């Protein structure tokens, strides 16, 4: 260290013909080194950071890099999810007043009391949405698994069939759905074309099922399901894709072994196919639940939309949404607990 300082100190004296700029630079250098000497622990900040990074053990360094990769998401999560969520909880607990800006005032759980008060339609809507869910989830699951198994077989025109079944993923949207449904509803009256009245009429099916001697409950459920066939087919695009991907990842060797042992197609399905796709069943259940719950046209969300957009009752709206979300979370948690024991993981 001392040598360096001596050199630097001597240099300006030796080359005094140099232009001023350079001389100044050297002076600065000398100063820096002097400060170094005073406090040897203190280094320029950038250098220190660099040194610290290069001295880091490999694993820690990798961890830091990984954190940097996820940092944009973390910032976004904080700005566009966490803060709005906290604000929304605050809204649900207070009286929201809108003027130039907005203000919130604690109102002792009034919003929650209000939505659970007798005579409120919220609970009614909630139950009807839950009822929808109870019908939709099993039907969509069974249907999409069924179609995926069919699409996985070899037959003529398979690529065309796949394209058709993936179409709902691309086009599916509330706008087109209402337009489609509305389209056939109204036209039938004018055109005298009864078969177009409801998308697919089940009027005769009720009679047939009743005459078969099935119990009324089962008949009702079947009719309900077949009335929904249009919605079900259009809502299960993603689920079909997920199941199909899972089916294609099953090793053909397993089926060959089955053939050698003389298993029937039925046994093959329950012993090989079903356990192999069971992790995806969970994914699909969760996806279907979330999809049904966050569909803006379901009764609860329609009501919330009305409360917010028409009566500007932001506090009550937020309370409704949070109650709704807690229920979703409870249902998903319950399903996770049940499925944890039933799912078969081939890896890990």
């Amino acid at each position, binding site marked *: 260290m001392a040598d360096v300082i001596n050199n630097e100190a001597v240099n300006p004296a030796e080359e005094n013909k140099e232009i001023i700029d350079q001389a100044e630079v050297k002076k600065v250098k000398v100063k820096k080194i002097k400060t170094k000497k005073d406090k040897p622990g203190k280094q320029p900040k950038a250098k220190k950071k660099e040194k610290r990074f290069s001295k880091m053990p490999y694993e820690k360094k990798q961890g830091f890099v990984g954190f940097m990769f996820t940092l944009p*998401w973390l910032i976004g999560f904080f700005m*566009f999810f966490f803060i709005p969520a906290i*604000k929304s909880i605050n*809204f649900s607990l207070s009286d929201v007043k809108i003027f130039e800006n907005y203000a919130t005032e604690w109102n002792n759980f009034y919003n929650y009391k209000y939505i659970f008060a007798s005579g409120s339609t919220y609970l009614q809507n909630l139950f009807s949405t839950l009822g929808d869910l109870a019908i939709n989830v099993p039907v969509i699951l069974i249907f999409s698994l069924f*179609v995926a198994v069919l699409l996985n077989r070899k037959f003529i025109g398979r690529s065309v069939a*796949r394209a058709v079944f993936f179409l709902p993923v691309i086009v599916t949207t509330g706008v087109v759905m209402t337009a489609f449904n509305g389209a*056939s509803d109204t036209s039938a009256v004018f055109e005298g074309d009864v078969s177009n009245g409801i998308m697919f009429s089940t009027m005769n099916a009720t009679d047939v099922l009743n005459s078969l001697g099935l119990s009324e409950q089962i008949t009702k459920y079947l009719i309900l399901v077949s009335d929904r066939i249009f919605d079900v087919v259009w809502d299960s695009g993603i689920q079909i894709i997920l199941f199909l*991907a899972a089916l294609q990842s099953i090793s053909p060797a397993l089926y060959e072994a089955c053939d050698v042992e003389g298993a029937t197609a039925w046994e093959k399905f329950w012993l090989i196919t079903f356990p192999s796709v069971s992790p995806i069943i969970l994914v699909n259940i969760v996806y279907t639940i979330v999809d049904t719950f966050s569909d803006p046209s379901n009764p609860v*969300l329609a009501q919330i939309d009305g409360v917010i957009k028409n009566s500007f009752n932001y506090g009550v709206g937020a309370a409704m949404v949070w109650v709704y979300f807690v229920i979703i979370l409870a249902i*998903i948690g319950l399903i996770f607990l049940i499925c944890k024991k039933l799912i078969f993981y081939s890896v890990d």
Partner: protein
Amino acid sequence: MNITKAIVSQFTKHKGKKTDKRLWLNVISNFIGKIVVSLILLGLAYVILYPLIYCISQAIRLPSDMYDPRVIYIPRHFTLQNLKDAWDFLDYPRILLNTVNVSLWPTILQLCTCALAGYGFARFKFKGKGIMFGLVILTLIVPPQTISVTTYTTFRYFDPFFISSGLNLVGLLPENYIDITDTLWSFILPALFASGLKSGLFIFIYRQFFRGIPKELEEAAYIDGCGSFGTFLKIIVPNAVPAFITVFLLSLVWYYNDYFTVPLFLPLTEVLSSSLNDMFTNMTTVGGLYAGVDVLLVYPIWRAGIILYILPLLIIFLVTQRKFTESIARSGIVG
């Protein structure tokens, strides 16, 4: 087909009478099975295509055919006038441009930032990773309606990390917030920070896919002196094309179809999804272009509007269909 051939060849080898019957039964049941499968799929395909076919059929007929009970699917008089009317009513080119603006840029940004986050979650170990990924899943299951109003207030009084307040103190801003509603920023900023529409799902897809790429590829790059980001760009991205295609298409389609957030954050911007949603009401209510006209005559134009709405999606789908179906199957969402 191979199984059938094998069975037939077996049948010709052994000519025992009992096995004969069995093998023939097998062949026949196999054949019937195929026909049944085709029939079921054909029926279901009809359910999917029916409304489309119906819309197209109504969109290309003359209004007089609407009164004709003999016409159900195939019109007697063809016309493109309905499409033209719908085109004019929607102001189609302008609205389509708006829609592309609102859906394409966030999609491209989301495509990149979600990939970064997905790579971070897939390949690195750091403190709090488990919790962070749990939060990603949480954003996935929280319905967007839960935080829509407060997200609006966040955009209306935008003050990220008190930057706006700071600028206001220094005197660079008149207020202590910026209003970014009704600007494209309210779509671009969330996408830039991997928090756009359904980005939790995209981070999940990327993570699953990146985990399936052999680690040896990256280790080789590291040994050759490539940095982490360089490795990501040069090794991971070229190997993850299916995941990128899947995310791009899904994200584009969901932004295109979204009629919930656009009217909320960009109330002054007309996009296809929201204007189609109101199209029928706008046409027939008092003061509308078709007020007082028989509804039956308005339907064909409305259907033509639906066709115009679906058309860009259909074109994208038909162009990328093969790649899309392949890549979804390969993108390892299954994990």
